[in-house]
């Protein structure tokens, strides 16, 4: 099968949920939640995230800061797992 040909599968489920994956449920409040801020290691991303952190704390959220080793690659699996286990939500910041 060539790289560009689309594969079509038949859904094996009872088709009670959408074929497209649903978004994670949004937080209903920031109060008391732990929010991760992921710096992707681009210049001045920290400046943006510092401001976001202040705003989040004003809303009553706990904030944890994380940093990817490089913006050129996806976050390492250990980092993703740490964020997933410690945080209720994450903001991944752009920069430049």
């Amino acid at each position: 099968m060539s790289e560009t040909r689309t594969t079509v599968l038949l859904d094996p489920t009872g088709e009670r949920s959408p074929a497209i994956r649903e978004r994670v449920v949004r937080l209903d409040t920031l109060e008391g939640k732990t929010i991760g801020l992921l710096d992707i290691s681009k210049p001045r991303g920290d400046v943006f995230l510092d401001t976001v952190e202040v705003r989040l704390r004003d809303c009553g959220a706990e904030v944890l800061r994380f940093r990817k080793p490089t913006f050129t690659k996806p976050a390492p699996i250990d980092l993703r797992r740490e964020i997933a286990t410690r945080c209720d939500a994450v903001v991944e910041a752009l920069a430049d």
Partner: protein
Amino acid sequence: MTDPVRPRLPDGIVAVVKRDCPTCALVAPVLAELDGRMKLTVFSQDDPGFPDGLDAVDDTSLCVSWHHGVEAVPTLLRVEGGVEVGRALGWHRGDWEQLTGVSGLGEGLPDWRPGCGSLSVDPDRAADLAVRFGGSMLHSRRVELAPLEDEFEAMFQRGWSDGLPLVPPTEKRVMAMLAGTSRRPDEVVAVVPPDLVPCTVEKVAVNAVAAGCLPEYLPVVLAAVEAACTEEFNIHGLLATTMPTSPVIIVNGPVRRAIGMNSGMNVFGQGNRANSSIGRALQLVVRNVGGGRPGEVDRATFGNPGKLSFCFAEDEEGSPWQPLSVDLGAKPGVDTVTLFPGEGPRSIVDQLSREPESLARSFAVNLRTLHHPKLLLAFDCLLAVGPEHARVFAEAGWDKARLVARLHERLQVPGREFIRGAGGIAEGLPENLADATLPKFKPDGILVVHCGGSAGLFSTMIGGWVGGAGGSQPVLREIGT
């Protein structure tokens, strides 16, 4: 290319031919002879220029041939009012004369010549044709993967897998799977708990493909799904329980050999495609169609490895006893599945008993321990007697009923052993039963099946889930076509 409409045949005589068929070439003069004497339409599968001078209709798409079930060429049809009223395969003078009403056809030709296979049933093309012309009969939602999406990872991500890779259920594979049954794809097989979703033959086929089944396994899977979703078997309760039990599928009848199931060495183990994939297909139907997933409705504390698949065949040929299916009411020689709500298999080792009484006692002390030696009348059991153990009983003239009766006798337990606190163990039955003697199993609570390798003085016991009408009862279903 898709043509969901079955093309109507023209009235008169219809011939389906291909140039690459010596018999078609042989009968070309006969077709020319018929042309002009009656309304004749010739469909050519490989070359519209053949036969010469007959102005054949192009059926190189094989649309007409596929829809009208042409299996050989030449095929001669008689059509009236758009309906086929007669058919002849190959060249047979008598048949052709009868169909056309013309005598003396094909002077100088032999009386009979077999035809060739129709291109529409060519093994290299059949699956593609089934999708092209028959695919519209499939109702399952199409899930289009992104071009760069890995299809195996995509299936994991959508939650369709039991933890192992699945075979991608493409239209082509599902159409091929459906050829394994005579049942219509849209026929509802069962309403599958816990979501109570009506499950069609097609949905079972999709999951059977995913599980790795061959088409000839499909009737067994269908019977297993039917059995699982009965009130008696109660797959919902079995799924939701914290206990480690799950459907165990036992297959009886000639189908075992026909599809190559294992009933011998390593019978509960790995390595046989039919055993592994049939059990897996049932589990995938429960997971995907019924929505029964671990951590959701499936609340098992431990589960057991058989929840991936636990399916095997009885060794009927080597058994001194009648098969389990006959014990449960089936006629001998009928293909059946029996579903038992079982935990994982536990070994019974007895390498010294050569007398049936000794071996029966060995079985009994082991069976006493199922789930807990002090818990009685709560659970059924499936006792798988190995060939070397079965021989001990057979040589002494013990039939299965005698063995089961003796086991029940040996499994009468006095109250002082099973009440709460007895033996310094809090678990047990209420103290007011101290003077009673109770059996470990209900009268019909011991099922015996013969299987396993020919070497090894071992048997195996499989504990059940809550037996009886309030729990799950073994269910037998005949396997259809």
